[in-house]
């Protein structure tokens, strides 16, 4: 049979329409499209796609199930390795993971594994397919700190193994970055994130919001006083960085976390109907080139009154860490990309609101420590971009609260928690994973770390019990 290189494309909202609303951009595959795409898989004897998936999903197996028209089987298979397929199918950077290592990638048309995974995940949500499991209570309690993807996956795994699991979350809503960071048009909150969390609640995972570990309680006390047999710390890396250039404290210069938190967690995207405001004016500048920058730019573009959003990135398009699909969508929607450009100062109005970003152009020099070519300022290239608001999306650091309040917890020089390959920290029975260990990474890596730690916790506690 000849190779079929016609990769199906996911139906999506028209750019002209979607730039004015917050509804999901990608509409999902129909059963026909899903089967058409599934039929392109070669079911390789040595499926290299699996090597590219950080949690090792048996990809050809679930694709076969789609072809066989048994989506239940596909759901069951994926859930063995990934409890949040509807989320990963949407947000995984597939192009550098499973789809990169798919053999058909060499021909330029890898199987659309992410889209198929989303199809399966959405099927599970639509049909309310509960996770099959017979939970036998083992009488042990485990505490999970943080309800982002890492905490959620750890909690789910441990619950299935019979532990009584309590997840402590500082905010008033669950989900971590899935809720406060990634916008509605990329990851619907009620239809997807909330459903996944409700699934865990149905399994019996207990959630405590408004509980900041390190302040409301101490990590060590959870073990010593509150009777938890182990603690898993998955607090993410949400401590915003600034560039420390003049004018950064002018009004309407936001960190990406502030901007996105206002938009998503506090629902400012609903305009005056929301209690928490956000101000964008007519022209917005976004600094950075990652997923966060892309999300901030596309959120800003969707706000009423916004005419132009400039994305200012100091390297070239090739070096941008954002998912390729987001960049493509951002371009279609009309984001003004200013590559090889960096702000050096923000200028303000008499009232102290930002009015312009003074920028310089860069060129790429020798590779730096990250292997990417280092941007170097072109002398005399200074120019101005007029803006009414700026979003700084240049990355985050480790939040210091838990490290400061947990004596003996080893961290590296950037404040990230140090663990062994099982997620065990320097303190017995305290584990950690996700962004607070790796630094800002991806949803699937955070989930994988949660699952790994759950297994290590179970192994350790079972060993002690026997």
């Amino acid at each position: 049979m000849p190779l079929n290189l016609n990769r199906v494309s996911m139906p999506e909202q028209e750019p002209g329409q979607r730039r004015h609303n917050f509804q999901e951009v990608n509409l999902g595959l129909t059963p026909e499209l899903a089967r058409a795409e599934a039929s392109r898989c070669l079911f390789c004897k040595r499926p290299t796609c699996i090597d590219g998936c950080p949690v090792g999903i048996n990809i050809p197996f679930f694709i076969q199930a789609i072809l066989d028209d048994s989506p239940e089987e596909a759901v069951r298979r994926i859930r063995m390795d990934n409890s949040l397929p509807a989320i990963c199918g949407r947000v995984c950077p597939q192009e550098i993971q499973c789809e990169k290592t798919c053999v058909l990638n060499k021909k330029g048309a890898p199987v659309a594994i992410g889209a198929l995974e989303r199809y399966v995940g959405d099927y599970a949500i639509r049909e309310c397919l509960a996770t099959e499991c017979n939970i036998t209570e083992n009488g042990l309690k485990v505490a999970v700190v943080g309800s982002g993807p890492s905490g959620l996956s750890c909690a789910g795994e441990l619950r299935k193994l019979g532990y009584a699991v309590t997840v402590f979350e500082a905010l008033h809503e669950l989900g971590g970055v899935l809720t406060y960071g990634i916008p509605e048009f990329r990851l619907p909150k009620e239809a997807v994130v909330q459903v996944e969390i409700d699934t865990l609640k149905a399994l019996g995972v207990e959630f405590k919001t408004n509980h900041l570990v390190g302040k409301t309680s101490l990590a060590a006390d959870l073990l010593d006083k509150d009777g938890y047999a182990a603690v898993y710390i998955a607090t993410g890396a949400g401590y915003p960085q600034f560039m420390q250039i003049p004018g950064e404290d002018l009004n309407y210069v936001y960190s990406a976390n502030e901007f996105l938190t206002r938009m998503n967690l506090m629902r400012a995207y609903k305009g005056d109907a929301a209690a928490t405001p956000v101000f964008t004016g007519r022209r917005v500048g976004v600094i950075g080139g990652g997923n966060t920058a892309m999300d901030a730019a596309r959120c800003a573009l969707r706000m009423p009154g916004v005419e132009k959003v400039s994305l200012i990135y100091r390297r070239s398009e090739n070096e941008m860490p954002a998912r390729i699909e987001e960049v493509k969508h951002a371009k279609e929607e009309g984001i003004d990309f200013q590559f090889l450009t960096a702000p050096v100062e923000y200028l303000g109005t008499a009232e102290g609101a930002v009015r312009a970003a003074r920028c310089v152009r860069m060129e790429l020099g020798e590779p730096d420590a990250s292997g990417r070519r280092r941007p170097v300022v072109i002398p005399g290239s200074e120019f101005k971009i007029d803006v009414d608001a700026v979003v700084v999306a240049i990355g985050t650091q480790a939040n210091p609260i838990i490290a400061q309040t947990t004596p003996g917890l080893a961290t590296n020089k950037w404040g990230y928690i140090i663990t062994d390959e099982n997620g065990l920290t320097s303190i017995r029975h305290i584990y950690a994973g996700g962004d607070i260990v790796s630094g800002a990474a991806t949803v699937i890596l955070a989930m994988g770390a949660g699952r790994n730690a759950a297994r290590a916790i179970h192994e350790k506690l079972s060993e002690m019990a026997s």
Partner: protein
Amino acid sequence: MFELISKNLLAPAVWRYTVKAPEIAAKRRAGNFVIVRPKEGSERIPLTIVSSDPQAGTIDIIFQVVGATTMDLSETDGILDIVGPLGHPTHIEKFGRAAVVGGGVGIAPLLPIAEALKQAGNNLTAILGARSSEFLILEEEMAAISDGLLIATDDGSQGQKGLVTDVLQPLLEQGALDFVLAVGPVVMMKAVSELTRPYRVKTMVSLNPLMIDGTGMCGVCRCRVDGQTRFACVDGPEFDGHQVDFGSLSRRLSMYKAEENKRREARN
């Protein structure tokens, strides 16, 4: 939902609430605050914990109704979300002769700090300022824990007519103070800091920038202190008044004036 145990009107539009929050009550120390979200859809706002009773599992907050969220709060029978205790507790030591200076509803956050300073063995003068005697809160509580209580009102209806700085100045001139801590409107904290600077009296202020999460995640609370960016929710809220850039603080506080007014009017 956090249960309200009692609700008292202390002055026009100033409420004192006792709220059931056992975990926070157990951990709270002077200087800590909470972030509350009164009801579904409300903003998250910071409020100082004025007192706590670990046995009863309650905390007290005092707030002035100034905008939509504090209106929501004044109308509820229970608070939907409360997280805390947040921020660094006040650094308390025996300074010697200490003065605490409070303006308006800033007297509320001042009370626990004053108590802690007194307990640490300081000789304590409390200077309280208000628009008029009607708006003066916590006078008795402050009198009970301080060695001297001085009052200034804008209209002279109680104590000295004038500003808290008018009352503070003679004490500084006499060399009667080793430490000052001020909480109140930004203009007041700025004026107090300027006043003490030439006398080289260490002066702490409790900053009140806008906040959202209170955990160091959003950065809206950033302030400039000694030329550096500091997050008031995790690095503060108390800072050395001689190092704070008050200009940028008051500018940033006015950032959403237009939107806040719109929302307040929509509720009226």
